[in-house]
């Protein structure tokens, strides 16, 4: 696949695609790592399905059902192109990243993981790339091992050699940390894992939306992401897998659509991708995801990355001026548009609450990454996260809101 050329985009035009930004008072939406806004073209594509060809897929022998099937399958092709999957049948539609990872944990895990086997994770995993492996380990007697992070919030590679052994069957790793924004050098981890014959699943929930991810170049075995973090609808996610693995894996959920033929006691299963898409899927959302891929491809992922970098560098500059602030994670050039911080003496909830009264939406909490919170020795952090439609003014608004929080709260004694 050719590298995307950098082409700066017209931020004003982009913002017009998102009616939420036309509201007054203005909203600085800085919780994009949790979920993003959805542009008109995507909403309109889903409306068109509901208004003009609403029907089930893969079954109806009538025109609008055929159209729905075509649109649904076209969405799969667009997603395959986005991540450079060799074949679109390697793209399985799920509800979200969490379901994609659980699919692998149950299906692949049930036939490939046994007692004494080891699964390697990192301390910065989102709970959705941790709890499914805990459950698998509990079912099978496998053991979880963790690659630790340095104080700067980077993976500690000095340990990797000791962690990866002939016992390692799987490495489950986040491409980008949802708390720190750290972009992990997963290519070299994948190579090292393959050298000991371990498979690798990449949690790409925070990478696919923000820069170009190429599954063939990475040579990952599985990759999971969600539509709702890349300007798409909720309720639709993706699992990519290598063909030979997906072919061998037993089904995850059983039911309609995933079968070839069904007898009383046994069934044979459909080919990929249907084998893993039991029941009526999120049709409108899948179609919406296809248009989402068009949208971010047209906006240009390389330009989105550069834009986020500008916002991030500016945010670092401004926030570092605030007295008593602690920023977590590495320098801007090592991460995506995520900035996690705490203000001395002010509870993260209060920071977020005061920012809300100032028209700034951020997240405060453990961000579904409690082991990482423990490693950072904090209970929670405040997190601002950017996407293509954010502006320098949003960062200024964040800065002003933080100054306001400080004024309001720092005369207060903290118990």
């Amino acid at each position, binding site marked *: 696949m050719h590298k995307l050329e950098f082409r700066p985009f017209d931020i004003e035009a982009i913002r017009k695609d998102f009616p939420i930004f036309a509201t007054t008072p203005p909203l600085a939406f800085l919780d994009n790592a949790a979920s993003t806004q959805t542009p008109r073209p995507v909403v309109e594509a889903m409306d068109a399905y509901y208004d003009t060809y609403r029907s089930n897929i893969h079954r109806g022998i009538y025109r609008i059902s055929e159209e729905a099937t075509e649109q649904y399958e076209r969405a799969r092709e667009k997603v395959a192109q986005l991540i450079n999957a060799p074949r679109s049948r390697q793209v399985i539609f799920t509800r979200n990243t969490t379901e994609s990872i659980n699919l692998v944990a149950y299906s692949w895990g049930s036939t490939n993981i046994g007692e004494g086997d080891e699964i390697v994770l990192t301390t910065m995993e989102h709970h959705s790339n941790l709890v499914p492996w805990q459950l698998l380990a509990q079912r099978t007697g496998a053991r979880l091992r963790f690659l630790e992070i340095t104080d700067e919030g980077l993976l500690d590679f000095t340990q990797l050699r000791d962690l990866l052994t002939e016992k390692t069957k799987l490495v489950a790793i986040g491409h980008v940390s949802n708390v720190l924004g750290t972009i992990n050098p997963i290519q070299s981890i994948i190579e090292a894992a393959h050298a000991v014959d371990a498979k690798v699943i990449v949690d790409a929930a925070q990478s696919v939306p923000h820069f170009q991810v190429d599954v063939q170049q990475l040579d990952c075995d599985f990759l999971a992401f969600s539509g709702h973090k890349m300007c798409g609808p909720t309720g639709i996610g993706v699992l990519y897998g290598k063909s030979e693995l997906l072919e061998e894996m037993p089904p995850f959920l059983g039911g309609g659509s995933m079968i070839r033929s069904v007898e009383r006691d046994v069934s044979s299963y459909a080919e990929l991708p249907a084998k893993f898409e039991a029941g009526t899927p999120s049709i409108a959302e899948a179609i919406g995801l296809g248009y989402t891929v068009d949208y971010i491809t047209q906006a240009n992922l390389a330009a989105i990355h550069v834009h986020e970098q500008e916002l991030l560098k500016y945010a670092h500059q401004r926030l570092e001026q605030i007295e008593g602030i602690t920023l977590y994670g590495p320098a801007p050039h090592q991460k995506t548009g995520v900035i996690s911080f705490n203000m001395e003496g002010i*509870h*993260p*909830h*209060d920071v977020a*609450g*005061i920012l809300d*009264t100032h028209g700034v939406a951020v997240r*405060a*909490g*453990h961000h579904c990454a409690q082991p990482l*919170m423990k490693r950072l020795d904090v*209970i*929670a952090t405040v997190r601002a996260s950017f996407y293509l439609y954010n502006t320098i003014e949003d960062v200024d608004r964040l800065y002003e809101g933080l100054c306001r929080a400080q004024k*309001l*709260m720092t*005369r*207060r*004694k903290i*118990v």
Partner: protein
Amino acid sequence: MNIYQEELLDHYENPSNYGTLPRCTISHEEDNPLCGDQIRLDLIVEDDIITKVRFSGHGCTISIASASMLTEEIQGKSLTEVKKLSRDDILDMIGIPLGPVRIKCALLALKVLKVGAYGIKGWPGEENE
């Protein structure tokens, strides 16, 4: 109305009954898994009367202020009477509208009391009794 109004901030700044009671009748602690806030209540109960109460822990303005207000409310009352305190009573004390996430902050102290003193599990207002 703004969450960060004076009365709540005053409770946060100068909470009533903050501390611990080394020799107490009831001591219980709970946390809010959403944000890690932690509240502990220590009570001395004599003949069903709460003669002394202290709270400790850490949390945001809402959880500290509501704990402070709760201790003022229950001091000197009977356990039987206090059992009736409901989610709505606490929200009335706070006196400002709260979203679903912040409501949990407001109810944390009451939850500690309900679990610790009566064994009533779950968030106040959502218990399956």
